[in-house]
């Protein structure tokens, strides 16, 4: 599923002032691509994601998915939020099946798929546990399964691993890569970790601070499936370096000399 974002601008009214969250942002995402959006906090990258989902209306500009204009949430969409957003009164399996229930796809028919997805993220045997009995990483795995249950062709992820510890995050990066390769789902992944973005992406979109727009797009040409050790290779580091230099240019990062001079 391809996504086209054309000159999207988003204004917010905040305390009587107009804040420009996004300024004439354009981006094209190809079918089956893994694209990550990286940028400083408050740069509107989550807003961009919500606009792609149809959950937020842009002030100006058009988003089309497979050529169709996005006016609201569409059925081919799966979202993973920053917090897991699991419903605490539902068991793991019931949380995943909620997607089927609300979309009226038949919980019975999709139970098999739900179990398969859970097994895919290493949660077989946990189907009947409740969210409060799971760790943060496990909860986020469940929410990934929930987002994938109805076979979406577009997966949107809003800083899904931001609240997890570094090691859990590494593991989930590996697992996510495997799942995306297996399912061939188009994925847009918002993060503020350069390392995570380089590791996961086919292309990495770098956003400037507010009023933000696309500053640079890096194509990451590292062979799949990538192993965690790829992060110690010169090629990987060259991409990270490039991303850091872009952030320095737009004033998000300041290197040691610059700070001592200032």
């Amino acid at each position, binding site marked *: 599923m391809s996504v086209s974002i054309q000159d999207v601008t988003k204004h917010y009214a905040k305390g009587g002032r107009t804040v420009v969250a996004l300024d004439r942002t354009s981006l094209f995402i190809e079918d089956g691509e893994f694209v990550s959006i990286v940028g400083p906090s408050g740069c509107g990258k989550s807003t961009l994601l919500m606009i792609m989902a149809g959950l937020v209306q842009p002030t100006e500009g058009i988003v089309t998915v497979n050529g169709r204009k996005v006016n609201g949430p569409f059925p081919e*969409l799966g979202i993973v939020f920053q917090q897991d*957003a699991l419903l605490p009164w539902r068991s793991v399996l019931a949380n995943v099946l909620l997607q089927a229930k*609300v979309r009226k796809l038949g919980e019975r028919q999709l139970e098999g798929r739900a179990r398969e997805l859970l097994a895919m993220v290493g949660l077989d045997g946990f189907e009947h546990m409740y969210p409060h009995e799971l760790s943060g990483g496990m909860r986020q795995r469940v929410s990934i399964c929930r987002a994938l249950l109805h076979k979406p062709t577009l997966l949107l992820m809003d800083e899904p691993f931001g609240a997890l510890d570094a090691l859990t995050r590494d593991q989930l990066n590996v697992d996510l890569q495997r799942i995306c390769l297996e399912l061939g789902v188009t994925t847009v992944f918002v993060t503020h970790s350069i390392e995570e973005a380089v590791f996961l992406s086919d292309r990495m979109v770098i956003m400037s601070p507010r009023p933000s727009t696309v500053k640079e797009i890096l194509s990451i040409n590292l062979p799949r499936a990538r192993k965690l050790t790829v992060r110690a290779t010169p090629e990987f580091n060259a991409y990270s370096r490039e991303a850091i230099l872009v952030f320095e240019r737009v004033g998000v990062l300041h290197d040691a000399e610059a700070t001592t001079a200032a």
Partner: protein
Amino acid sequence: MLSTPLKRADLGHYRRKMRSFSRRVEFPYSIAVLVVVGVFWEFMTRWGHVSPIILPRPTAIISDLIIHWHLFLSQAGMTLLEIVIGFLTSMAVAIPLAMLLGASRTVERMLYPIIVGSQTVPVVSIAPILLAWFGFGLKPKVIVVVLITFFPIMMNAFAGMRAMSEQVHNLARSMGASRFQLFWHFQLPGALPNIFSGMKIATTLSVVGAVVAEFVGSDSGLGYEIMVAGSNLDLAHQFAAVSVLTVMGLTLFAIMSRLEKVCLPWHISVRSAHNSR
């Protein structure tokens, strides 16, 4: 493959067992405190300088309870009837109203100020008016119970409806949830903990409401019993009636807590602190 998860489940079961055990052993502590206070009280009234007309002995209260148990039982039944009818009516009005307020900002703007404003009227002060309108029977007592329990149930339920996070709302929308689905699958279950805490507060208030209404005018119920015993300077009988009321309030509260545990096993107020990871 399955052995690890199964072990985990067993562990959870074991933990739950341990918790219910620790709850059981906590209970006798408070009983022990009550017994100590009771014994001290008995000593003070027997050998201290406290007149039994001012403060009856615990033994006198207990013997009064035993002698008049039949009377207490029927009067308690009357009061309980008022409470139960009043409480259920209150729930039937307050919870749907909270849903309505939670569903629509317009309805909220229209009714919320009126509901909050109405709470500045002390319910107790309008009990005599209700008596004038509805006479000595069951009705005015039930109405006082409704009025006194309505607010905590409504406000807590409303707060629960509004507590749904934006993220959960977005999740529901991304699934294409209808307004009803949003309410039924996301908002209402999420509000249940608040609804229960409102009902728990309301149970204790409902006893107060029923007794006050009986004070104002009635010919039966535990409140009536207290009034009559007061005019006869029979403090032991009054204390006995008060203790019956206390037991009734406690029982109602315990039933509500039990119900909460059954309905919300997942909620933090039900899970014990050391179970969280």
